[in-house]
Structure formats: C-alpha cells, structure tokens
C-alpha cells in the first residue's frame, strides 16, 4: 500500500535532497595517509599549546595523546576531596587546537591503574556518538580515533560511557575543549582579521559533593564508594561547588592569569554540563562568539555572555586599564560562594580619561 502520508514524506525527502549542497568529496585512506602529520603535546589549562592562528599550508593530521587518570582532587580551601576523573590529569581536560579541514587523531589511553571504562565524545566530530561508540576503553587498553574537523569553533569533548555513568563522569571532571580555527584565522563582523596576543582556556565545572549528618563534606575511599551518594546530590541539581580550572581559587593568587594593557586576549570558556554566564568585572567582551562557532559573526561590546551547558564559547578582549580583574560566572552567588571566580592581573598605564576618583571618600559636608 502506498499511502498519502508516505507520498508526502517521500516528496519532502526529495525536496530536502534537492536543497542540499552537493556532497563534498570524501578523502580516501590513501589521500589521508599522504597528508603531513604533526604531533602536538598538550599542556595543562588554563594554558594552550603553541599554535598558528592562520594555518600554514593545507590540511594535516594532528596527533594528540591523552591518558585518563582517576584520582582524588582537592577542590576548595577547606580540603574537600572529589573522587576525580580526568583527561590527562587535569580538570578540565587540556585544550586542543587545530584548523578547519585538519584531521584530529587521538590516542586515548586508559591505564591499568584506573578502575573504570572510559571513552570520549567530541562535539566537533560527526557520527558514532561523537566518537564515543568507537573509543570505549577498559583499564589497561588504549584506542586511536581519527575525525575530520569539518566545522570551525570551540567545542566541548567529554566522557560518555553509558547511562548514569555519563553525567557522573562529566561532573567528576571528564570534560575538555577543542578549538577548530578557520584556516585563515578569526575575523570580525566585516571579515577583517583578528589576531590575539594571548589565549586562556577556562573550563568551568560544577561538583556535587555529598555531606554527612553534621553538614560537612564527606570523603570517600574510592570512586565506587562515592557513587550512590553523589548521584543523589546530582539529581537535586544543586551543585556544592562551581569552579574554574578544577578547584575554587585555582586561577587566583600566584595562579592568576596575566596580561598587559593593550594586549588582545582570547578567553575560551567551556562548560560541559550546565549553563553559565562569564563576565569580566570592569571589562567587556569586544568580540564574542557566545556559541563558539566562528562561521558566525562575533557579537560586539558584550557585558556578559551566555555559555550553554554542553558548549564552549570564545571572547576577545583588549585590556584598557591596569588592575586586578575578577573574571566570574555572573551568577554572583556561584562566583563568590561556590567558587566561580578567576583573576587577571593586568599591568600597564592607568588612563584617567577612562576613569578617575574625582573626590576620595570623606565625611558628607554639612553647611
């Protein structure tokens, strides 16, 4: 039977196919094998490995290796311990930078010292659950995945084993970012090039640490011991910690980010699980890709920008005044009480033209 409904679906499908651009030619294994290869050593956040902003030459295969490390991590000044899970030992996992059209070739190692299977889902990749279906590795195994970076932008990657393990692994620290730059670099809304002097990568994580009957955070012997209690706190959707770079205060004091007046800084902000709203206190976002996708023109002059849970965004800012800037999640309760505050220490000349204390605080005059 050929129903009217089927006919309509068929017509719609035909129309859709007709509207699609011609399929790009897909490279063969031989062609990919002939591409130049580059091996990149990842660095711990908030820093990013050295990279060209404008690609030199044609597409390459970029090789990365990450080892998964399950380990207890101290997440605040009170010594609260998270049974952490990490890509390459850091929360967040390190940032990878490639160019659109490059191939990412990742070796994912799950050492025998770990206790659980893990995998990786790249939001930048197409198919197989972002690679998750092809990368599940048990302790003592490793796997190699290649995917083509077909879209430019900042993208989250995270562990996604199965079922309730997925959110648990993510809120235990297993998330990171890949930045796929346009081959000709970043551009403003007019298509003119934007070149950053520095890049910082801020991974925001929220944690759900169970408490004992006195209200103190509990410490567990192992991941397995912590699982049931942690899941209960997670299901309440009220995090106990919201932090940058894995711990409250991780990007403050001696570890505050450094810049100079006049420097254009690219700030990549990633949150794999929950919405957030970065804000530079006393500064702005000159050019902001809220969704992080560079094929779209950047928004300009933002005060606060919105990073959807499960995405990474990018903001360019040129510091105009020296000082100590707080970079916060502008839910200020999360910033101040739960930990989502980082600092920039910016040196340079003060410009009275931009701001001046015309009169110092003093008694209110009484005439």
């Amino acid at each position, binding site marked *: 039977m050929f129903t009217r409904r089927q006919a309509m679906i068929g017509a719609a499908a035909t129309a859709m196919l007709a509207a699609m651009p011609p399929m790009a030619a897909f490279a063969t294994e031989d062609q990919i094998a002939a591409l130049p290869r580059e091996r990149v050593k990842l660095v711990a956040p908030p820093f990013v490995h050295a990279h060209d902003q404008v690609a030199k030459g044609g597409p390459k295969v970029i090789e990365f290796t990450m080892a998964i490390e399950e380990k207890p991590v101290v997440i605040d000044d009170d010594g609260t311990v998270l049974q952490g899970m990490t890509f390459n030992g850091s929360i967040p996992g390190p940032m990878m930078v490639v160019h659109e059209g490059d191939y990412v070739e990742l070796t994912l190692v799950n050492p025998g010292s770990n206790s659980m299977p893990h995998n990786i889902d790249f939001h930048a990749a197409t198919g197989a659950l972002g690679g998750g279906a092809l990368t599940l590795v048990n302790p003592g195994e490793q796997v190699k995945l290649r995917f083509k970076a077909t879209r430019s932008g900042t993208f989250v990657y995270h562990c996604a084993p199965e079922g309730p393990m997925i959110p648990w692994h993510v809120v235990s620290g297993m998330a990171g970012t890949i930045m796929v730059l346009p081959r000709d670099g970043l551009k403003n809304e007019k298509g003119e090039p934007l070149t950053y002097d520095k890049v910082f990568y801020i991974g925001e994580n929220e944690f759900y640490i169970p408490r004992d009957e006195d209200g103190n955070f509990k410490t567990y012997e192992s991941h397995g011991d912590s699982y049931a209690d942690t899941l209960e706190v997670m299901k309440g959707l009220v995090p106990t910690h919201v932090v940058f770079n894995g711990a409250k205060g991780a990007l403050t004091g001696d570890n505050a980010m450094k810049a100079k007046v006049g420097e254009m800084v690219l700030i990549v902000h990633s949150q794999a699980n929950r919405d957030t709203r970065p804000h530079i206190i006393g500064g702005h976002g000159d050019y902001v890709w809220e969704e992080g996708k560079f094929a779209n023109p950047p928004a300009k002059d933002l005060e606060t920008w919105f990073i959807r849970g499960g995405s990474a965004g990018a903001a360019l800012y040129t510091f105009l005044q020296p000082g100590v800037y707080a970079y916060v999640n502008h839910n200020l309760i999360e910033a101040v009480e739960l930990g989502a505050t980082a600092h920039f*220490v910016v040196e340079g000349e003060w410009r009275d033209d931009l701001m001046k204390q015309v*009169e110092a605080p003093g008694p209110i005059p009484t005439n």
Partner: protein
Amino acid sequence: MAITLLEASFTSAALVAPALALGLQAPSEPPVPAAETVTIAEQVLDFPLPGEFLADGRPAAAPTTREDVAAFRITKHQVSLADYQRCAAAGACAAADARATHGDVPVTGVNWTDAQAYARWYSEVTDGKWRLPTALEAAAAAGERFGGESFAAGADDPGNPAVRWIRRYREEAAAKRPADPEPKPRGHYGPNSFGVEDFGGNVWEWTSTCYSRVTLTAEGGVESAVENCGVHVLEGRHRAYMSNFVRDGKSGGCAVGTPPENLGFRLVRDDGGLPAIAALKARLRSVIDMFRYS
C-alpha cells in the same frame, strides 16, 4: 558485674537527664567558674591605628602612635566552645556556627553581637565584669604575636592606582598559607611571652574597636574621620575588619585579601585583682579609644 555497671549507668542517666533539663534555672546551680586571666602589665606600645587612611585623596599607610596602655587582665585562653554552648543553652547567646568538632576547642563561628552577648551573660553568671578587649588591648596582650596590618596600605604611584592593587594582591598571594580551618584544642598554638595562649592561631579575635575611615592632614594629623560601628576590628595573624553580623571569616571580607580562617574572641576582666585605679584607667582608655575620632 559488667551488666550491673551498665544498668547502674542507665539508671543514673535516667535520673540525671530531667535534672539537666532544668539545670540552669535551678537556684542551687553553682556559679560558673571564672576563666583564668593573665595580667598584662602597664606598657608603652607603638600601635598602628586600625582603619583605612587617606592622605591627599589617596590611600595612606596607617599612622603608628605611641600609646600608654594601663595594666589589665585578659583571659589566658580564647572562650571555649563548651562555655559558649552554656550561654546558648541558657538562651543568652545565639548558637554558634561552629564546626562540628570534639575536645576543648575555642568557639568559632561567632559574630561581634554574639561575643557581646556572651560577655554580658558571662558577667552575670560569674559575678565579674567582662568585656571585649579594644584593638589596642588585643595588641598589648598579643605582645610579640601581634600581626596588625600585614600589608602596606600606602599608594605606590599617585597616577596609577593599579600599581598598589597589584602589589597588595601579590603580597597577599605570597603570604597565603594552606588553609587549616579545623579548630585546634585550646593551647595548641602555645603561649606568648606573657602566657596568653593561642594568639595568632587560626581563630581571629573580635575587639570592641570600630572601623573608621580617616582623612589625614599633610602633617599626618587627623583632618576628618567617619567611624562605622557596624564593622569591628579583629586581631589575629593579620588585622581584619568584619561586619558585626558575620560569623564566617571567608564571607565577611570586602576585599580580595586573605580572609580569617575562624572568628572567635577572648575577654578582658575589669573587676577585682587590679588596683581600682588601674581598672578605671583601662575602662577610660577603652572609652577614649572608642570615641577617639568621633
């Protein structure tokens, strides 16, 4: 035998429990023993004044004045959690936000109002006259452990306020120690040369001195001052200023600086043991201190 003892203890617990519930109202209740005090002899002290100072419209270092401190008596230990809980049980103090812990620890998680309430209650139940020390008395009693202002507050570059912000930020970062907020048993940090225990440990101590913002003259004198008694001075490893209602040092700071790990207090005893004239001088001194800028 074991069974008998167990039964005996059950029995006595059953008998004692209702008595305890009535305990504090019972007229036969013995007065609370007064805490041990240390007499701080009269001394002359170079004292960095608490508060914030401005000269020529810019932050200035706190002036240090030479102060004559009359002899006074101060508790050897910080007020204990157990004693504070007696005040709370009597309904005279609000329950402290103290960390759940064991042993003879100082009370923590108390604000300035709590400390004032405790001093009133303690004066009643011990038949003594107890009060918070002034910042000057706290400094005098702390002796070699007095922290005061750890970081120079003066402006480094009149044309660039950020130079000072960044310098202070770096100094504070360098001075930061791993947090150790767990209250320690009283006596853990040991006595100073006067025999006063635990000053400069992880419990900062409330004083009766108000925060003030002072504009200095070119000669360093006081041109004007605005006192804010909604904020009081705490002395400890470094000086801190906290709103009267704050119980958690981490949430009370208004700057980027390193916050106190815990807020507690000790008391000064104004009656007995000291010559009446010295006690009067001490009292007068605290009053003068309170109004010095108003």
